């Protein structure tokens, strides 16, 4: 199947049949809570990360994300990554395919979700979607021409634990990653986050600037070493306030300034994202491809 035949129905479904849907999106950029995409909905997202770099050039990394709710307990996502390193070049750095599986049918005191990802990226990937192992700032100072020659095939597993109470969401992610190229050991990392809407009751009218449309919080993430040297030495860590603005016009905006917590971390990361959810995408695709 050539690319035109593959993507034409997808674009047509998005443009004509699938309806934009209001989403109550979390403000996290790195941390995952236990909420999955609504079944049959497609969320298209764009994210950017501007990072400062000591001993090298600052960079702007970006990724596009296509998140599909296969069922109420399974969400699948596809990412395309790239980056611009100032005074260097702009390059495509790879793709990721992630799946999140809800393990329990109902809400419990803590709600676990299993995360499985395969990624094929180059050594020049700088999106910092997660920090693991001994990832440190100096790794990102390598010029693109050299860094892109390294090819990584990684399997990444996360256990996502999340709970919402009194309007607060608290989430914790434990990360284990195995680079399948070379003899790299398992690497570990973490992400934790807490967030809350600015107000818990909804107003009676549709409005852009209602406090209920804003969710604010904070997240912290970093590496935990690897199988042979587990712990905090030679790891990087970040603390980042986060805010999301869920617009009734179906768009969600996210903003997060992040601050490195030790000398191994980038001093400053500014992240922002824009997303839109399309409900009924799965049914529209099925109809366009001749299904029910």
């Amino acid at each position, binding site marked *: 199947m050539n690319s035109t035949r593959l993507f034409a129905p997808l674009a047509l479904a998005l443009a004509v049949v699938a*309806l934009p*849907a*209001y989403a*109550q999106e*979390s403000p996290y950029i790195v941390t995952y*809570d236990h*909420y*999955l995409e*609504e*079944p*049959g909905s497609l969320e298209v997202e764009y994210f950017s990360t501007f990072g400062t770099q000591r001993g090298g050039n600052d960079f702007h990394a970006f990724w596009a994300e296509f998140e599909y*709710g*296969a*069922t*109420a*307990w*399974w969400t*699948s996502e596809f990412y395309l990554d790239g980056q611009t390193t100032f005074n260097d070049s702009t390059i495509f750095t790879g793709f990721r395919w992630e*799946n999140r599986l*809800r393990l329990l*049918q*109902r*809400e419990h005191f803590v709600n676990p979700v299993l995360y*499985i990802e*395969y990624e094929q990226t180059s050594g020049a990937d700088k999106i910092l979607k997660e920090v693991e192992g001994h990832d440190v700032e100096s790794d990102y100072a390598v010029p693109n021409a050299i860094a892109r020659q390294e090819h990584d*095939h990684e*399997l990444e597993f996360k256990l996502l634990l999340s709970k*919402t109470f*009194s*309007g607060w*969401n608290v989430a914790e992610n434990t990360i284990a990653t*195995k680079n*399948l*190229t*070379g*003899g790299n050991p398992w690497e570990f990392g973490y992400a934790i986050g807490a967030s809350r*809407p600015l107000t*818990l*009751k*909804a*107003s*009676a*009218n*549709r409005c852009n600037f209602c406090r*209920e449309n804003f969710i604010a919080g904070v997240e912290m993430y970093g590496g935990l070493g690897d199988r042979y040297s587990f712990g905090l030495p030679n790891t990087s860590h970040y603390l980042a306030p986060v805010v999301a603005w869920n617009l*009734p016009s179906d768009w969600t905006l996210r903003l997060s300034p992040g601050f490195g917590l030790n000398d191994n971390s980038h001093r400053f990361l500014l992240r922002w994202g824009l997303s839109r959810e399309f*409900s*009924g995408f799965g*049914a529209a695709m099925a109809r366009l491809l001749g299904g029910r």
Partner: protein
Amino acid sequence: MIPSTVRRSGLPILLVTLPLIFTWAVAQSDNSTPKKNSVYAELAKAPPKAAARHNPLASDPNAVAAGSKLFQLHCAECHGEAANGGRKGPSLRADEVQQATPGTLFWLLTNGVVRRGMPVWSKLPEPQRWQLVSFIKSLSAPPKS
């Protein structure tokens, strides 16, 4: 040639297994949608303590209007704009729903019916879920033709 580390890691197993699971999941999802009676049966599974909860916003004059707005934003796509039922979700004007206690509806909203395609809605703050319950309970039964 596949590197030995890749073979040991089970990547080929993963690449075969995931599409199979995906196909099964979609089949499960499709099978679940028309069985609306079984979705209503989920209401009976609410624990007595949850079913007995009272709606703290029952006397809030804005609760139904706010619930109506939330319904259009989050629920109408599946349950229909008039809550008469849609392609994926059952009617919320049915007797099974209208006769359920507010606590039961709140419990169902919070926990979803994940196996049958209804997501959990605990990501909406509790007051918003109660506003939705207020709106759902305000719906009258559909006119009989």
